[in-house]
């Protein structure tokens, strides 16, 4: 059952304020991921403070890197159920967990950060993992 919107609103805002586009419907997801070329970071947001409390700041840190995906989008697990299910349909064999992050290039997952790779790790460590993936898979330089 979804949490009250008033509770999750700050968590949604934390993502949009760092530049992520929130996808709240199946149509939103298909528009963003359905025929996308280039690179897209998908952040599966969560209310769980055990892991998401470090994951959101990690994404914020990673998005200050010099090489970035062309788009950053987010869906909210447990809240926007249909949108999340649709987003996960683009993740192939990767199993659902939240929070989690998928880096897609030309529609294929090229890097995935599972919940178990977030739990107990600092935002700095998670961000370092992400930026390493950006360096490997993305070519969009900030300011270019």
């Amino acid at each position, binding site marked *: 059952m979804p949490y009250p919107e008033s509770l999750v609103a*700050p*968590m949604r805002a*934390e993502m949009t304020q760092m530049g992520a586009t929130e996808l709240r419907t199946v149509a939103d997801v298909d528009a963003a991921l359905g025929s996308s070329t280039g690179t897209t970071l998908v952040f599966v947001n969560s*209310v*769980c*403070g*055990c*892991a998401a*409390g*470090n994951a*959101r*700041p990690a994404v914020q840190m990673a998005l200050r890197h010099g090489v970035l995906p062309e788009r950053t989008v987010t869906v909210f697990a447990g809240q926007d159920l249909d949108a999340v299910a649709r987003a996960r349909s683009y993740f192939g*064999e*990767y*199993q*659902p*967990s939240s929070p*989690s992050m998928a880096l897609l290039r030309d529609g294929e997952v090229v890097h*995935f950060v*599972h*919940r*178990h*790779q977030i*739990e*107990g*790790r600092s*935002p700095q460590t998670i961000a370092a993992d992400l930026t390493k993936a950006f360096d490997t898979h993305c070519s969009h330089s900030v300011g270019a």
Partner: protein
Amino acid sequence: MSGHVFHPGHHELHGITVVLETERALWVGRFDSVTPKGVLLHDAGAYEDGVTPGTREEYLQKTLKFGVRATAKNVIIPEGEVRGMRQLAEAAG
């Protein structure tokens, strides 16, 4: 809101994805608590000796790469059957 935790006062592994080994199976799931009936895991998958293809190690490596293929929303493993438990992340070496 960053760092906010909704579950104060819980076991230190609460919310952590763990690998729990028994004599006949290896469970991977999100630790909740130790209840009077045993260890409660959420969204858990299992490797069962003699049933699941491959080895426990192969199952673990696939889980590390692709995540937990959950077959049970909630499962309780009796404490007496638990041979060991560790964080899944530790299995990555």
